[in-house]
């Protein structure tokens, strides 16, 4: 990227951000008129506003959601809905972000937008108390159960070292577009949980992963199907006692978001936000070694947006 390119991108990004700030609804329209060339950012990081506003700005600078969601496509949005905790505990993806992403997808002409997670706590309570069930329904999306083995189909993980097959939810297998929406938080097993770890929620048997070198399995499964877009929610961040958290005292307000088509890069940037070197998170390192994405942020064109 030369200097001119850089200036151009920064300017358009800045304008997009500014525009969304002043006219929250205009982002979509504006982004739609941009065409494909502004999607060349490898990663967009946003700070400073509400989750939905940050997404409006961030996705606009990537060319708008229609860059990733063709008209008539089936979209799967996979947030983290693992725990029966309210939004302020930051145990799950922020409902406002999920809602906005579903709205964007539908306004871009998606045929349907499906949301689910294979939860850890009881799924009906988790869907309800996370606020995500209501958010998805209000936005016009569809939230479905992940709580029955019948929904999961056996697939091969060809590049897997320890995880060579898995039962994957059919909603992922049927989706044309896969948008991964993890929440950034501390994790007792994997240090942090971000995008790749969030994919544990599309498989049935998590126990196998824990039993057979968790970090390797996380990286192995990352090779199965990379998300078309990863949006990391770092609005409220659980800094300890993760992934469930004990109280709101575990949470700090970071007001950040990372968007990328490369989920290894997104994980690396989010790890940095968490105060951890990407290489210290073993599954990020392994995924990078497996060439599933780039964890060296110095190699990426990054748009940094402050709202």
């Amino acid at each position, binding site marked *: 990227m030369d200097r001119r390119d850089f200036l151009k991108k920064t300017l358009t990004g800045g304008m997009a951000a500014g525009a969304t700030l002043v006219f929250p609804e205009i982002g979509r329209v504006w982004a739609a008129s941009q065409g494909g060339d502004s999607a060349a950012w490898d990663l967009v990081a946003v700070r400073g506003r509400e989750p939905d506003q940050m997404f409006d700005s961030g996705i606009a600078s990537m060319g708008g959601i229609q860059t990733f969601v063709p008209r008539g496509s089936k979209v799967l949005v996979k947030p983290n809905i693992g725990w029966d905790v309210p939004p302020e505990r930051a145990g799950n993806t922020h409902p406002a972000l999920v809602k906005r992403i579903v709205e964007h997808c539908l306004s871009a002409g998606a045929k349907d937008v499906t949301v689910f997670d294979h939860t850890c706590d009881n799924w009906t309570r988790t869907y309800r108390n996370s606020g995500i069930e209501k958010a998805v329904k209000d936005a016009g999306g569809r939230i479905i159960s992940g709580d029955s083995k019948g929904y999961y189909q056996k697939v091969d993980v060809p590049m897997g070292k320890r995880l060579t097959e898995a039962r994957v939810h059919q909603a992922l297998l049927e989706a044309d577009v896969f948008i991964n929406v993890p929440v950034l938080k501390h994790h007792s*097993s994997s240090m942090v949980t971000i995008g790749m770890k969030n994919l544990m929620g599309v498989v049935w048997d998590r126990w196998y992963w824990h039993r057979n070198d968790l970090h390797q399995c996380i990286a192995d499964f990352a090779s199965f199907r990379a998300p078309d877009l990863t949006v990391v929610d770092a609005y409220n961040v659980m800094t300890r006692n993760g992934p469930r958290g004990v109280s709101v005292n575990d949470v700090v307000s970071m007001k950040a978001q990372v968007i990328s088509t490369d989920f290894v890069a997104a994980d690396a940037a989010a790890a940095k936000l968490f105060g951890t070197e990407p290489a210290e998170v073993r599954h990020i390192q392994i995924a990078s070694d497996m060439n599933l994405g780039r964890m060296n942020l110095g190699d990426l064109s990054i748009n940094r947006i402050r709202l």
Partner: protein
Amino acid sequence: MRIRHLRPFRISIALVFFLLTLFLFLDFRDSVSRAIAGEVLFLQFVPSLLKFLDTAAIGAGGFILVLVITLLFGRVYCSFVCPLGIFQDLISRLARKRISGPGKKKNRYRFSYSRPHYFLWYAVLILTVLLYLAGSGLMLNLLDPFSSFGRMVSTLFRPLVLGANNLGASVLEQLGIHFLYRVQWPVFVPVSTGIALVTLMVVGWLSIRHGRLYCNTLCPVGALLGLFSKISMFRIRIAPDACGSCRQCQRACKAGCIDLKRETVDVSRCVACFNCLAACPGQGLAIRNHWRRKVSHNPPAPGRRGFLLGLAAAGMGLGSSRVNAGPVKPVDSTDPFGPGIQTRPTTIPETRTGPISPPGSVSVARFSSLCTACHLCVSVCPSRILVPAFLDYGPSGMLQPKMDFRSGHCNYDCTNCLEICPTGAIQPLSRKEKQQAQVGVARFIKENCVVYTDNTNCGACSEHCPTKAVAMVHYLTLPDRDLLIPEVKPDICVGCGGCEYACPTKPYKAIYVDGNPVHKIAEKPVEKAVEQRIDTSGEFPF
């Protein structure tokens, strides 16, 4: 109201009670069952009695109301409220239609007078009371009509409903409709299913062949209410002058208690269904106030006596412990987690010293003395962790639910079972109290742990822990990884089983919950201020 209209009146009330009660056990989507359970089950005799014995609260006085109604009108409970009684009426009616077929109006009524089986009936009642006084509620639990009905529905009919739902869900999913969702099966407990099947067969066969014979020979509630109705105020009697001896009433009497030869009605066996009143073509049957004649008698006295008897029963029942806490069999390795290939099976069995009773039950002994094993809590537990026990509570506590973490863990914020228990065996603690009710404590077997055996990170146990009583602490530093291993802080552990459920080792878990015979109050987790190593300045660290 004319007396022949009492029958349709009874049928409509009975249907309302029956359908609502049935719904409580089948409401697998947890819609409104918990909100209405208290009202629907208020009159259930044995649960209400046990609750009253435990708490002496007016709110638990449903059985007193039943006794009063019985003293006034006879065994109204048996035909209007008792789900097992109404269930028998339904079976009997369906079978009659099937046997007689349409158009054969002659066979509409097919009962006749039968000899009473007082000896057996009162022997059952006396034995049930004596056994309870001696400290064993087994007979009460097996014969309580509400609990028998609950077990049949929850172990036999509920799976059918779930199966139909799952079938419907998968068909609708093909059409892109997600209104229904598939649900998981309850844990299969052979002894529970077996007893429910036997109950269904005995009750079903007796009701098809002999109407309400079960209620009048084996049901202790029927026997007790029968004693009360013997002195009830309003009773059905035959009016000899007006009776044309057409026998329609006798044929309609499913209790077989109308004896036209002697022109008597055995009120202790009469279940107040009022079929006879509707069947009589003339004025051969009447309802008469029997108290008007014998004013000198003191009718409520037996009530008070029965009441005191109950109180004494409670005292002795509570005082005696009948928990036989033996070691529990190791978890079956054919678990629901799928075909995980495991290179090294774990070798050290968990040592469980006793069963885990649900939060709010205060102690295993208290729980076991009050629970009638109706399995309503089993039905409403969203995590499917309440499972009928076999001998975990001792032979007396057969079928009473215990916490079993094979297919889930107790959701930290969930209070479903506490809200719904009709006997008060599970007390309705507030959410905060429940979150500190320590039903057991996690125990860690390091030698079974993945971190120890494989030197790979796991931490699934700590992940699920709602209080971080299971914390990950430094274990080992290898060239490419830092290993953390679980450490249990028993003081803040509530025994929810999240760690046990999540632990991936087989066949023995590396971490499991051992029950507290007497529940304790867990300490609250200490909350320190967050150390600020995260940049909240708004800058980008990359």
